């Protein structure tokens, strides 16, 4: 299924604001959104995208 242009625009906007994330993550995130919109995803897809997300395990507040 083609993603509606509105969702593509929203994705572009969200990922542009996601500083510090790799191109690999952004590509995986787009794919996940596409899979979710067609109800064709599994937990493993979500897990892979999560694990490719860059985060900082910072010091205690």
């Amino acid at each position, binding site marked *: 299924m083609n993603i509606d242009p509105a*969702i593509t625009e*929203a994705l572009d*906007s969200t990922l542009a604001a996601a500083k510090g994330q790799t191109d690999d993550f952004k590509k995986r995130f787009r794919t996940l959104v596409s899979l979710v919109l067609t*109800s064709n995803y599994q937990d493993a897809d979500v897990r892979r995208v999560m694990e490719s997300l860059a985060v900082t395990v910072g010091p*205690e507040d």
Partner: protein
Amino acid sequence: MEVRLTGWRTENLRGGLRNLDIDLGSEPDRWTLIQMPNGMGKTTTMDLMRWTLTGRELPAATVRSLRADDHVTKGMFEIRLLIDDTPIRLQLDLDFRDGSASYWTVSADTRGGGRREGRKLPAELRELLKPALTELFVFNGELATQILDLSKSKAAEAIRSLYGLDTLDAVTERVDALVAQERTRASSVTRAVEQKGITQLQNALDEVKTAKASLDKQHRGAVTRLAKGEKELDRLDQEINARLSEDAGVRAEIELIDQRHKEIDATAGEFSTQALEVLRRPPHVHPALLARLQNLGGKLYELKLPETISREFFRELSDQKVCVCGRPIGHDERKAILDGADRFLAQDQISVINQMKLALRESKGDPDELNRLISGLQDQLADRQRLKSERDRLTSERIAEGDEILARLGQDKDALKRELDTLRETVERLTTRDPARQRALRLGWETNVPLCDAELKVRTGRLDTATKTRRFALQGESLKDLVKATSTRALDILRARVTASTNDKLSQIMKTEHIRIARIGGGLELRSDQVASKENASEGQKLSIAYAFLTSLLAEAPYRLPFIVDSPAVSIDVASRREIAQLIPDFFGQMVMFVISSERAGFAESFYGRKKDVRYLTIMPQGGGTADIQYGIEAFKDFHGPESVA
């Protein structure tokens, strides 16, 4: 994906739905107008369509309320669809006795008649068909008011549902589930998966690292001091010997002691070597061990031969005229040899077992040898101790005679030996790996290097697990934020798009008062040319706005859905009906409209001019819950029914 309605069927249901089969054709017309009087089950039919499409669970009371009469125990509703030109039937089976309902799917591409329990729709359509959206295309006239109601969220829900944004939001639930799983898995290692707990684990690990560094330093210091002390001890011994040797008589005794000492050491060395050699031969260690080995050899299986090399022996033997025992070999003997060979053959590895067996059975040894060697070794050690006492005696005598230098050397040596003993104890405490010694000395990770290493490994593992889990949880939170941001942004864009499209249509409908949508919040916020915030609209205006919104929403949606509407124009004036009837139909790929006779004026009659793609059905009651279906425009025009809305 396109979904079209091709018909529906009812059995044993209330109103006029005892036995009704509506056929819209295998290639349904774009517009269908169905005229039926009140009480025939329009509202019930619309409800049944929504329930069947969404697979809603029905309360027992609802199921029983659908019963045609007390004589029927079961009922059924079936809706027929074309999904991308593939026919599929969704059925709702009703059991009036226990109030249960079950959904079934009939499709041509499945075996055994193709009837399967459940809603077996394509996954994306199954997700799409939720109540919030289904109410929009199986349209409830009352919803028009709700769409405009700012206190409700129908409009935003409709957009979210239609464009799959609610499905996108469901990812957050999956993320939470994955993080929960990870935490459960990690809890077997550590309960600390939050930042505070991780800091505590880090501190605990640092504590062990500090202890390890301290223990290593103590160990290095003790070993260095021990090495120096032993050299110092050698030097003191040499000085003491030199001092003692200044007396010729004593020197002679010392030389004798040293000579004897060397002999004892040599003998003790030989005993040690022999004892070690005996220990390598179990039959010599103890009489009981020898007996048990011989017993084991006797209990092993009967001796067998390796099959590969030994079968040939039996074959050649059977070919001989005379056996090795001298007896002649005839036909019977030959057959007995070949048939019996298997009893003596086994896998080739059996030869190894045979050797072991023979070795065990023939085990021989002198079980008292080890005892003799140990006894001899103990004698040598006792002699050595006596020599040491003899040397000490010589030193003591000289000191007693007033040799102060020797006395000081002796004191230095005693002090050094005590220090070296303490250092050896320290090194043992620091380095022993023997669990029994560790327990006896009450050692812990704070005082013993091997225990400290083990604790370091455990705490490092805990911290790694907690950090990984914490990272995973943070990744989950970030992903949820990104999904939410995407969903929110998409909703804003879609709201703006649907608003523009709706206002474009409203500009064509609203000729007298130019009402527009200011924004789509939860519902629709209105404005007009005269007022910035239009709070009151007539029923006709509300319906017009609702249709404009619905047509905009559904026409641009990624899915093409049929629009099924009950009494589409009953609450608006005739002039507005004509405008709506002109405007709405072209926005949908398929429209099925339930109308009452009063809606013919202005609305239904607007379709009369369309020469194709219009189907007219007129349903009339025949008594006893049955109905007659008339197809065609003439019956539709001629029908006279009650003017009130069902």
